[in-house]
């Protein structure tokens, strides 16, 4: 499902829920079961990580999840295979999340085509900032793959407006300086300084991520942003589980988060 439709059709849940899971951690069957559970439990979009060994934007939780997935031999083709199985069945958008080098190596054109065929709605590439993203955005747009771009607390206002204009699907607001991870608190002050200007610059949904991990975080930003992105806290909650246990842990996590 395309992101624009998923956001239009989202349940009354405010803000919308955009969870992140690492494909293949600990195995693809578990990932697919978790994605289905997230979709059943109201996820508007689901970010599916394609593992990369040198994830500059990720903290220890997601880096370790990627290392486990790589150790089990997961490839881009495997992840796209999962997307092809999941996309027709779930009412959530699937957004792939990976780094530039593995995509570049696979071929940007080939990746966009294969991702679109599998039914993915978008791709987030956190290590290409605006200046390096033009070619990728143009190619992905041809295949109707949205590319949500990131705005950071350190992004100057004029630049944030340009990033908003270049983004598609949604706009990803990074809550704090640093990398992903639930160990340190998110900081909502930078987002609150930026949000009015971003609203003026784009009609895209605004999604807040990095460190969002607890129900009080979700409640605190419900009036500011359209969606919360929750990755490390979910991966922590899934630690050591697989199969049905992972599904049960997912359900517990989501009901806790929106309690």
């Amino acid at each position: 499902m395309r992101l624009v439709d998923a956001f239009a059709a989202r349940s009354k849940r405010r803000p919308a829920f955009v969870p992140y899971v690492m494909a293949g951690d600990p195995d693809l069957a578990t990932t697919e079961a978790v994605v289905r559970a997230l979709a059943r439990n109201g996820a508007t979009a689901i970010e599916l990580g394609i593992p990369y060994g040198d994830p500059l934007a990720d903290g220890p939780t997601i880096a370790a999840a990627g290392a486990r997935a790589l150790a089990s031999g997961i490839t881009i083709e495997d992840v796209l295979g999962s997307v092809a199985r999941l996309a027709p069945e779930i009412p959530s958008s699937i957004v792939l999340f990976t780094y530039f080098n593995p995509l570049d190596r696979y071929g940007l054109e080939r990746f966009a085509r294969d991702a679109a065929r599998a039914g993915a709605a978008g791709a987030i590439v956190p290590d290409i900032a605006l200046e390096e993203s033009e070619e990728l955005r143009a190619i992905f747009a041809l295949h109707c793959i949205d590319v949500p771009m990131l705005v950071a607390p350190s992004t100057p206002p004029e630049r944030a407006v340009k990033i908003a204009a270049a983004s598609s699907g949604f706009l990803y607001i990074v809550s704090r300086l640093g990398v992903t991870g639930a160990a340190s608190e998110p900081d909502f002050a930078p987002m609150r300084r930026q949000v009015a200007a971003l609203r003026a610059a784009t009609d895209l949904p605004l999604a807040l991520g990095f460190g969002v991990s607890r129900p009080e975080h979700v409640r605190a930003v419900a009036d500011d942003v359209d969606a919360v992105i929750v990755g490390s806290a979910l991966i922590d909650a899934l630690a050591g589980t697989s199969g049905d246990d992972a599904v049960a842990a997912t359900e517990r996590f989501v009901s806790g988060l929106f309690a």
Partner: protein
Amino acid sequence: MPIEPNARGYFGAFGGRFVPEVLVAALEELEAAMRGAFADEGFWAEYREVLRDFVGRPSALYPALRFLGADASVPLLFKREDTNHTGAHKINNTVGQALLARRMGKRRLIAETGAGQHGVATATVGAKFGLPVDVYMGELDVERQALNVYIMQLLGATVHPVSGGTKTLKDATNEAFRVWAAQVEESFYVIGSVVGAHPYPYMVREFQKVIGEETRAQCLERYGRLPSDVIACVGGGSNAMGIFSAFVDDPEVRLWGVEAAGEGVASGRTAAALGAGSVGVLHGSRSYLLQSERGQVIETHSISAGLDYPGVGPEHAFLKDSGRATYVPITDDEALAAFYDCAKSEGIVPALESAHALAFAKKLAAQRTSDALVVVNLSGRGDKDIAQVRALRERAEVRS
């Protein structure tokens, strides 16, 4: 004139700024401050003064009369970066970056290190300029380079072992970038080679080009001509860019970058990014890289920790593809043999990194005549490597 990258930090097709958005503003702030400093004669005057009084520059250009053997006729010169304070060329760069950090009002320095040479050089300038230093170092390297860890601590730095990935320099660099992302306002990230996102490859070269400028002037003054060949080892490539940059406009000067072949470029246990790698993106720039078919960075191997890195600076990728410089591999065994030879024949114990350049000098000299003038950048001294070399020798003796 050394090559200028374009406005987006590219040397031809290589370079750029492949970083998370959170770092872009910091890189822009750094670039603006760097341009201001580079245009300020006062900045360079202070840099030169510190290099003279603290580092001990200029370093000598030493005629190595015995290394090639008694009957050799090819004049061979060593650029003595090993005599710098802290024992390598790394300090030229850390002095420059520390001065820039101070000028920008930054309150802390962050550095990555592999063997510990760049960590020691950063800890040293941190102590000198009164800036606290956090060094990130792979867990394996912390074990392998215990002495340098202790020296850094002695100098007041905090050494943070990094447990992710291969637990070596690549992962230490990832971690330094991550930590910098969380502290961009107060911290200055001191990168140790001509790698990373723009403007680092350019900036680090500018702080190392003193090696080439001195070499050029010393050659002209003493021999009345330019060298025929300039040889330097290439890890990330900073000592090589430092010496090459003074000669890129002189097509008659052949430039040789020596990579660590490890057990051989085709062995799978190598660190020769230009010789065995392909084009990709690592640590913020596009360059050659040792990577799998799937774009995952491959674990590297070299006897020399300072060359044991899967990437290489983008300007070297450009010099390779343009044909201006030639990159050649030297194996662990060849480097080790040159290490012993240099110690015995010249009374200089070279760094294992520099021993790669020396090993190639021997090969090249065999094809040169007495009208050549070969310069080797002796990037560092070998004190840091003695425990490792001794252990290797003892193991070899046990086997034989």
